[in-house]
C-alpha cells in the first residue's frame, strides 16, 4: 500500500496511509485503556514535568 505524501501547515512533509474505516471501533472504554490512562495520570501526578522544555522546575 503506497504512502501518501502530504504537507502540513508548517510546510513539513509527512507520510500517511491511514485508511478511515467505520469498522474501527472506539477503544476508549476498554478496561485496559482506562487502566492505562489512570496509571499515566498517576505517574504524571507523582513525577511531574521537571526536565521538559519550559518545565525546568517541578
Amino acid at each position: 500500500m503506497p504512502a501518501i505524501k502530504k504537507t502540513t501547515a508548517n510546510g513539513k512533509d509527512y507520510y500517511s496511509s491511514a485508511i478511515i474505516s467505520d469498522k474501527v471501533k472506539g477503544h476508549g472504554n476498554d478496561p485496559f485503556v482506562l487502566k492505562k490512562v489512570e496509571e499515566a495520570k498517576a505517574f504524571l501526578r507523582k513525577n511531574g514535568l521537571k526536565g521538559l522544555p519550559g518545565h525546568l522546575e517541578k
Partner: protein
Amino acid sequence: MKLERYPYFASNDFKNYIFYSNGPKGQIKKGVRFSKMNNNPIMYNLAFGDIAEGTDVIDDMAVSNNNDRDLVLATVANTIFDFTNNYGNHYIFAIGSTSVRTRLYQMGIVGLWNEISIDFDVYGFKDGSWHTFQENVNYKAFLVKRK
C-alpha cells in the same frame, strides 16, 4: 518517516487505529488508542496492544513474539503522525504495562532511532525527571512530541 510499516486503519475521529501483524505466529490484530490525560501541557496517553479475537478489546499483556517488532513500532509511530495531524502537536505519553514491556519499547525506539529522531523529540523519565532520550539509558516512561 519512511520506515517500512503495516497498512493501518483509523476510526473516524482518528483516536483509534488497528493493523495486522504478520509473522510466524500468524496474523495478530493490533490496536492503538490515544486518550487525553492532561491539559497543561496537553498530553495524550498512547495505549497499544493486541486485540484478542472474540473480545475486540485492546490488551497488552499478550506476548506475540511475531518477529516483527520494528515493523509494529514503525506502524505505531505512523499513527502518531495521523493523530497529531488532527489533534495538534502535543505530547504523547507511553509506558509499558510491566518494566519488561517498557524495556521492549526502549529497545524498539533504539532500533529505529535514526528515523524516529528525524521527526520526533523523545524524552525518557529517569531519576526523578525527564531527559532527552539517549540510546544507552533505561527509562521508566517516555514522552514523544513531533518536531
